[in-house]
């Protein structure tokens, strides 16, 4: 074969591949992720990335509408009896799993039981559950030992939550996350392939039966347009941005605040704010060290901090953060101003005096932070400097995330550590409410309030008790909030049907290109 023939062949091959490529890309959403999820098993994994992918595969009995209220998804309706202690849930009847089996009460019971025993957030509900049983082919009854207010929010929150799996998969499953051949749900997409380091791919579930009603948050009709969703791990943020600009991705997540103005002005890029803000938290150690039960010293530390300066350095543009001391943003039903006058006093002199009164004599305070999240590190640097100005001897210890989570489980290794918290629709899900979360805040005052908080389902009463809890957080300072951060993602302008902001995790039903 001569050179010319080779050239011709190459051109033909190129054209053919191009045509095939275009047809293929038209039906594929290419999503650049920050990395790879540990697993897609929703019941045990709490990574946000896992949920972003997995909530296209799995569904729960309930989900959230745009106002963060729980509404039925796989459930059809429910009735409460015996003073709220017996919950009878009727299931939708025409739903099929990706393996073709119809979803029945047996699957729901098996899923709830595995979640209750091994699920990350399962204990929150199941500490109050007496039994779960199938009381009909499409009817499940949950019997509680006492009325438990947040039950519906917990059933609707799929992250570390009660995703519904086929009984055949979930029976015998334990704490170890399910392997990919167990990723069988009822959602609009089914699991297709996971090429480590390359991509994780979902394909359209042809027999998907959508819930009825106008789309509202995660609720309502789910129209499936893309043939495939491809989640591509791109850990380097610069590469994610460059790739979207170059047209190699349709969507890229977790973009730094400082690029917002530039990207927002770029006609080739659409910015999408995340609806629920995340917030940085500094936890204090209640088991050991100088901060163990010295609440006055903790308050002195909080008094020295100027959270606005930290947010400005760590996030950048003022439109992307709020120096808000409430654990919920203004406008949310859980918003309360209780205790927030102490949120960001930024008064080093007062802090110095308070520390003296609290008996602080300059002993080192170990403050752990990880470099995996730049805004953690940036905030900690600002805090360390502010605390030094107020006379605190801060020993900043910088680790990678994996080392930090091992160290924070050991009470003698640290006094404070930095982490962040995602938006959760019910305060019971905030980590500081968990007595076992590192920091181990479990004072009698907290436990009394917490018991009252979960014992009632009455919204106004629950809100009032939450305000008392938040005030207690500012008094005992088990954790210090940094302020609300509105993270954002970027998308190709060619995507249609994307809401102006995401609810918690982005979703791609009702979206096309």
């Amino acid at each position, binding site marked *: 074969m001569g050179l010319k023939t080779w050239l011709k062949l190459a051109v033909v091959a190129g054209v053919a591949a191009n045509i095939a490529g275009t047809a293929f890309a038209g039906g594929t959403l290419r999503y650049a992720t920050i990395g790879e999820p540990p697993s897609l098993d929703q019941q045990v994994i709490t990574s946000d990335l896992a949920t972003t992918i997995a909530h296209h595969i799995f569904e729960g009995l309930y989900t959230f509408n745009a106002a963060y209220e729980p509404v039925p998804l796989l459930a059809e309706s429910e009735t409460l009896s015996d003073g709220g202690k017996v919950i009878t849930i009727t299931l939708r009847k025409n739903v099929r799993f990706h393996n073709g089996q119809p979803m029945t009460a047996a699957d729901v019971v098996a899923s709830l039981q595995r979640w209750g025993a091994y699920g990350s957030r399962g204990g929150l509900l199941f500490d109050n559950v007496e039994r779960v049983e199938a009381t009909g082919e499409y009817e499940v009854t949950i019997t509680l030992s006492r009325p438990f207010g947040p039950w519906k929010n917990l059933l609707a929150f799929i992250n570390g939550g009660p995703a519904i799996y086929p009984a055949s998969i979930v029976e015998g499953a334990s704490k170890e996350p399910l392997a990919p051949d167990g990723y069988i749900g009822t959602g609009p997409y089914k699991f297709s392939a996971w090429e480590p380091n390359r991509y994780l791919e979902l394909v359209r579930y042809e027999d998907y039966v959508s819930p009825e009603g106008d789309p509202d948050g995660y609720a309502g009709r789910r129209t499936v347009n893309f043939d495939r969703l491809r989640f591509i791990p791109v850990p380097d943020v*610069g590469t994610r941005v460059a790739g979207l600009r170059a047209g190699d991705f349709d969507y890229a997540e977790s973009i730094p605040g400082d690029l917002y103005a530039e990207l927002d002005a770029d006609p080739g890029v659409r910015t999408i704010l995340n609806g629920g803000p995340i917030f940085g938290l500094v936890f204090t150690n209640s088991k050991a060290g100088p901060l163990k039960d010295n609440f006055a010293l903790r308050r002195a530390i909080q008094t020295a901090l100027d959270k606005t300066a930290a947010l*400005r350095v760590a996030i950048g543009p003022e439109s992307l953060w709020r120096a808000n001391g409430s654990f919920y943003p203004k406008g949310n039903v859980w918003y309360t101003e209780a205790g927030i006058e102490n949120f960001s006093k930024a008064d080093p002199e007062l802090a110095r005096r308070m520390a003296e009164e609290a008996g602080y004599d300059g002993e080192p305070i170990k403050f752990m932070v990880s470099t995996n999240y730049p805004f953690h590190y940036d905030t900690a640097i600002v805090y360390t400097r502010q605390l030094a100005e107020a006379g605190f001897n801060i020993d900043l210890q910088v680790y990678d995330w994996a080392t930090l989570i091992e160290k924070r489980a050991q009470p003698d290794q640290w006094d404070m550590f930095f982490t962040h918290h995602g938006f959760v629709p019910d305060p019971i899900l905030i980590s500081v409410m968990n007595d076992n979360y590192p920091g181990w805040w479990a004072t009698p005052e907290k436990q009394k309030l917490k018991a009252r908080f979960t014992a009632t389902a009455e919204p106004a009463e629950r809100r009032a008790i939450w305000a008392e809890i938040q005030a207690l957080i500012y008094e005992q300072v088990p954790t210090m909030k940094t302020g609300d951060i509105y993270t954002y993602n970027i998308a190709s302008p060619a995507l249609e049907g994307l809401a102006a902001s995401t609810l918690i995790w982005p979703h791609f039903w009702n979206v096309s290109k």
Partner: protein
Amino acid sequence: MNGLISVLRSVRERRLATIGLIWLALVCIAALGAPLLAPFDPLDFDPLARLAEPGWPHLFGTDHFGRDTLSRAIYGARMAVLIGTGSVFVALVVGGIVGMLSAYFTKLGHLLMRAVDVLMAFPALLLALVLMTLLERSVVNTIIVIGTVYATTTARILFGMTLKLKGEVFVEAAICSGAGHASVLFRHILPNLVSPLLVQASFIFAFAQLQAAALDFLGLGLPPEVPSWGNMLSEERIYITRAPWLLIFPGTLIILTVFSMNLLGDAMRDSIDPRFRKDVKGV
């Protein structure tokens, strides 16, 4: 000593190498006089002067903390010199001792060089990554890890060169006249190796800069709070379009420094004993 003088003379004869030498002298001055030369505290930040363009008073602009880039660059020279000389020191001392002893005492050498073979089979950068995670990020650990990587190559080179010298008449004469092992090794063999070692040192210095910058980039080098050129690039790389000066200045400093060292090493290599010329690796 003669070797050293001829090496320096050869540098003077090359115009580019002379320029390199001048640049390296400037880097050293910046490293030594950083507190006097830097207009600002390299760690002092100003949330209201973030990402300022180069101008007055921040000649090289500021980073996302509002820290002065010029001051950080000057303090970065300190880290460059420290990492470079530290790695050279570790590599030459450890590698030198292992290599020379192995060549001189054949039985011990058999064992030691086998150990060097094992270490050399490890992928250098991957090994450095694992070791840095294991040891935690610090200046000393970075020096040890980079130094160890080049200690193996140095050991092998010195092994070869010492072997060649061992057979020379003057060494055999020294042994015959009853000189002790230490005397033979350090008085008779080592002085002949000074100039090739100097060349090797210059290449190690240059490589160490790039290796340290790569570790910083991967988040496993110097502690992030240390102002080094690598950390500056790593921390500010997302601002490549938003604040280009944050990448251009430290990047250029690394390139100039490494290039200067390479030029110097190259010029010196031409002047050393032709028998050893091929042993010394480099660019």
